[in-house]
């Protein structure tokens, strides 16, 4: 139904953003895709030859391993974030307006501080002689410092902290938007609180949770500063390696190929997960009908 709207109207509305994205994103990216198919030597990119060398190099077990680690860490972070964010969203959603807004701000606060500076804050907190280890030692829980930095633990803590809000926001919006009548109706029909949660609240908030987790996941996959600063060389993720390859080796074709593979892999995963969610939602509804 789109009478009264001329056929070009949607395109006219899309034009400004598309134009900006063309210059600010698409065309540079296309150039970088082109780079990924060129040869490389210490003398620079050889634009006269076309080759798949950069891509075949990525089949190497080492690069595959780095991709695997990136994927694994990203998934772990998203999973933990989802589990942690759900109760927080539940709590925030039932607060009154102003308290709600202030609490959301607390969760948004990691963005108010520069990543690099924040990393120094983490060093003071997580380092071998940092606040947490000092507390643990004072309580007599450990003798040797617990390694919380320069390993995956550090990266996971840092990224859960950094990307928490992207799961929390949509989830909170969905939970706050659920008609309380539905819960009352379920209770009225004899459902206990846990049942109400499982059969009404959870299924209704699942799409939002999934949307948040997907954004969170893609951000984890592309994160650079936090893994570099909290994980160091020991936790090599794709972005970190892409930095080294692009800047230290100056091998732009390989760097571009890496990001292309990362982009495509993430996109595929996102689309796949959306499919699974769609079929999962049908199942939840079916179960609910039983």
């Amino acid at each position: 139904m789109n009478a009264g709207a001329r056929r070009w109207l949607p395109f006219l509305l899309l034009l400004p953003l598309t134009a900006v994205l063309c210059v600010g994103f698409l065309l540079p990216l296309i150039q970088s895709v082109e780079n990924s198919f060129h040869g490389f030597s210490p003398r620079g990119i050889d634009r006269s030859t076309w080759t798949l060398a950069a891509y075949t190099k990525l089949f190497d077990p080492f690069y595959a391993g780095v991709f695997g680690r990136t994927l694994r860490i990203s998934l772990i972070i998203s999973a933990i974030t989802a589990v942690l964010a759900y109760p927080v969203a539940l709590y925030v959603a039932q607060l009154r307006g102003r308290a709600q807004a202030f609490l959301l701000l607390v969760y948004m606060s990691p963005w108010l501080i520069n990543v690099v500076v924040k990393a120094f804050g983490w060093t003071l907190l997580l380092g071998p002689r940092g606040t947490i280890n000092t507390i643990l030692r004072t309580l007599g829980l450990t003798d040797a410092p617990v390694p919380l930095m320069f390993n995956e633990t550090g990266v996971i803590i840092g990224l859960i902290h950094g990307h928490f809000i992207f799961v929390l926001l949509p989830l909170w919006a969905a939970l706050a938007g659920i008609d309380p009548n539905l819960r009352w109706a379920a209770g009225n029909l004899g459902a206990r609180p846990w049942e109400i949660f499982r059969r009404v609240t959870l299924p209704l908030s699942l799409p939002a949770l999934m949307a948040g987790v997907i954004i969170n996941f893609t951000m984890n996959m592309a994160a650079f500063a936090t893994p570099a600063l909290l994980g160091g060389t020991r936790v090599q993720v794709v972005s970190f390696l892409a930095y080294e390859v692009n800047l230290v080796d100056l091998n732009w074709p390989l760097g571009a190929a890496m990001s292309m593979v990362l982009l495509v892999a993430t996109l595929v995963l996102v689309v796949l997960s959306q499919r699974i969610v769609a079929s999962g939602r049908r199942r939840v509804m079916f179960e609910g009908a039983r």
Partner: protein
Amino acid sequence: MRKDRIVSSLAAAAALLALAPSAALAQGKEVHLLSWGGTIQTMLEKEGWADRFKKETGYTLTLVPKATSSEIIATAIAQKGKPQVDVVLCDMVAYLQGVEQGIFATLDRAKVPNLAKMVDLAWVKDGKGVMTYVDVVGMMYQEDVFKRKGWAPPKSWADIMRPELKGQLLIPPVSNTYGVYFLIELARMNGGSEKNIDPGFEALKKLAPGVVDWTTTFAKIGTLMQGEAASLAVFGYTSGFEIRKRGTPVMPLVPVPTYMSPTVAGAMAGSPNPEGASALVNWLISEPVLAYRGERFGNTPMNREVKVTGENAERVLTGDQLKTLVNVDYDTVLAKRAEWNDRFNREIATVR
């Protein structure tokens, strides 16, 4: 209505925005220097050296600051063929990568008169660049910690292999300039060389489990040393002094054989302001600038005529000392850089 108030305050903000002065680009009389933020930026912008340059030459000096030599050279290469900067100042190894990609012009002796005053060593690749000052690769250790634990202070490169230092080390990775020199020294120490780097990697592999972090920046080393997360670090000699000066009880030392880490300046080929570029390179290797670097940071000037005085003077290398420094085979380093870095990432970086 309160919605109106939000809208009107947004509108007011937008109006302010339109009135805000946009940084207009001064044309012609401007020279762009692509280099580090940090101390260089402080020197130029806070301590008034950019104004001095303008007074002396008439050019407005604008710094394009980056965090690392790799970022500096990547920025320069991205502008290949259509550069927007005139002069690049960064670490030797990264600079040579730029030379290899053909982004630098040959310096003109007539337009850069100070070149005549430089030591012979300072010439880079037939005049594609010039070393301004050098730092040496050093170590720093926590005096208090060593005393407390009854360990002997380290003296030589070999001391780093001592078993009690396991879990106490901060070492720069091979992607870092100091890390490259350290790798070469490890190779030489174990009977290898730039051309036979395997012994170096074997030694790194032995060290790897005892490394707290493969650290690339001065700031991170400072923080970790201060928090006693580690007690021995390999890095630039001057950084050690800087950290000590800021109240962390580290003792810097320079083991023999000594490696220098030069800072190189040069002009971009096809730069928008070639005259200004020559003037800036000339100024960067001039006496006052290099004397300042020497006095403030203990950097050794490559200009023969610079006299360094003050507390750091004793750390500045003499002409004779300069001759004893290790000659690194830069051609090999350059050809192997990506390969070594790749190997480090594969074999060493994740070992614990």
